[in-house]
């Protein structure tokens, strides 16, 4: 049931993103962008990443999409300016086909099509026929014991027994083991712990970036008269 729902969400996400880049009116494309973000957030919540899913809705839909809409309303584009977008698409169509084939060729030559993530070869050999949109929902088909996803439905803890095959590799390569020690915390607690201890300098840097963004808008859009 969950996997069907996830598949629906994914298809909806792809569809609405395609619509958002092809629609002529920017308002409509922003609305489709919101649809994309909401379905991505629902997808994340369904597979068990609750906090970031919710923060997706808060940040993207609450801030960025509103910002886009605000700018679109503010600069008040004339529709005749945009209406030749369709012509523009057909003009660049060969370029698009070229890019799509190149991209798909390169990506799926180096990454085989059935090979979806690195955790799979440790557990079972992948079969190429399962749904290619969603990676590991095949676990529900193959049997509950070998999947991560079925485990998710019962427990939202970050640690799971099924991927312990991988964890010896992780201990081999992971120099800072702070994230391995925190297994008894809740999700948000783990995130917060990691944000404020391990990556504290990153948080400072991020805050500098946000300060720069604030300053940049002020500088760029400042009116000239009252300098």
């Amino acid at each position: 049931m969950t996997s069907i729902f996830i598949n629906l969400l994914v298809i909806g996400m792809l569809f609405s993103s395609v619509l958002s880049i092809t629609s002529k009116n920017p308002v409509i494309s922003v609305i489709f962008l919101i649809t994309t973000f909401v379905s991505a957030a629902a997808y994340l919540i369904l597979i068990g990443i609750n906090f970031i899913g919710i923060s997706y809705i808060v940040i993207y839909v609450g801030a960025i999409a509103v910002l886009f809409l605000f700018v679109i309303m503010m600069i008040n584009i004339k529709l005749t300016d945009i209406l030749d977008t369709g012509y523009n698409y057909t003009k660049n169509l060969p370029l698009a086909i070229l890019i799509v084939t190149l991209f798909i060729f390169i990506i799926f030559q180096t990454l085989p099509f059935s090979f979806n993530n690195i955790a799979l070869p440790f557990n079972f050999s992948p079969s190429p026929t399962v749904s290619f949109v969603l990676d590991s929902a095949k676990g529900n088909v193959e049997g509950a014991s070998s999947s991560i996803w079925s485990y998710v439905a019962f427990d939202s803890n970050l640690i799971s027994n099924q991927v312990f095959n991988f964890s010896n590799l992780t201990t081999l390569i992971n120099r800072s083991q702070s994230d391995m020690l925190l297994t008894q915390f809740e999700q948000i607690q783990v995130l917060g712990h990691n944000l404020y201890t391990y990556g504290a300098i990153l948080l400072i840097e991020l805050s500098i970036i946000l300060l720069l963004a604030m300053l940049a808008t002020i500088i760029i859009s400042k009116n000239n008269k009252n300098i």
Partner: protein
Amino acid sequence: MIFITILILIVAKALPVLNTNISSVHFFRIISIVFIVTGFLSFNTLYLETIGTGIGIYSGLFHVTQISQFIETFFYLIVGLLLIGWPQIITKVNKVKYYLTDKYSTDYSLIILFSSLGSSLLISSYDLISLYLSIELQSFGLYVLSTLYRNSESSTKSGLKYFLLGGLSSAIILLGSGIVYSYTGTTSFESIYLLNSINDLSFPLSSLGGTEYFLQGLTLGLLLIFIGFLFKIAAAPLHNWSPDVYDGTPTIVTMYLTILPKIAIFMFLLEITTHFGISHGPLNIGSFEIYTSFLVESSIYKLLLITSISSLIIGSVLGLSQVKIKRLLAYSTISHIGFILLALLINTEQSIDSFLFYILQYTITNLNLFLIILALTYTHKMNNLNYISDLKNLFFSNPLLSLCLCVCLFSMAGIPPLIGFFSKQFVLYAAIQNGFYLTAILAIIVSVISASYYLKIVKLLISENETFTKIESITENENENEANSSDLTSSSLSANKDSYGVLSLIIELTNVHSFIISTLTLILLLFFIKPSLILNSTQLLSLSLFYT
């Protein structure tokens, strides 16, 4: 070290926001002093001479080695020098001098603070997350910087173009780092190097069964990261945005855009390539297992080779047909990038030596060139020195400054006693020694071609055959430094005697500006007298990279 830097920068940043009444000249001086002090601090805080491999700070997210420390010091010094280049407009009302500057100047220096903070973090970043954050910090600063003159149409247009393509390239970098993360499961570079070297020995991962996928994924991700960075430094197949952007932005912004972000990105690329041991790692051991594990190295190597050759060719051939001076400089930048990438991909001790030396030389020369162009622009009351033909006959109106310009251009073209010749020679020497004969021949031909357009500027500058005057200037002494600078200011003053109106606006070069120009020109000139200082330091740095 970096934390002290951040604190200083934040304090300096908080100053103008709180009181905007502070004079912008003072503001400039404060910030450039801050940069110089920061350079001193970054040189002096960590004593790394005994630790060969450098130390990781902030829980391994950043990594300071001797090279990054040295380059950071150099970087701060250059930024400090660069900020001085802002011209002063001196208004004389009743013989009382008022210092005015451009109204954008405080914003400019403020954003330079942010952006150079980002690039100094990028130099020493050692983790995918910190890499992404610092590249974004740097490039956000650059986008804003190129849109800073929001009343000029070309500036906003080029800023918009720069933003869109820069956003695309940082999305590509992000995709690459996402793929690297998804195949290695870690974001720290050290773990990635470790995994890669484990694969070199074909030791445990192949028994776990994921080796080939791992290597392919790692290769793809690193390739994407490299493509994104090559986009950002405008190497050749991805160079299309750079002449437009450099042409559209005002000169003082272009000066920043061409020099400083490139240093940071190059240092980062150096970090990655040396650790992956491209093309000259411990190969030829004989076991055939090794063949598969060179996937990462060989593909990055091919990518770098292609971009280096094509940017050599494109940078010099397309530069021939340019009439605008900043477009021409953009193309010459592209061909210099070709040289630097060539030195990077050879990746032996000697080539890394020449790589560092080329970067130092390129920075000094380009800084000097742009400072001279700025000086010319402001002394001649042109709004913008757009076309090459504007430089015509300049030698007679302002001989010293145009002499400096000639020296710079000769150094970029690689005329023997100047510094540019030595750097090109080192790169070519390393290339030939490692068997890159075809590339070396190509680079020689291309540098001859590009010398022709530098010489075209010089010919325009003098426009009557007085080509021999600057040969004598080679033997100038260190004593002439002060004399030179004072001459410069006096000449610029005399060039500006024709003032207009009651409120006579005289744009004057500051003393510091002309002093810097003369000093840099003398460095370019007199390098061959005492070359051992810079050469020894770069050689020691490259050795420290290889033998630790």
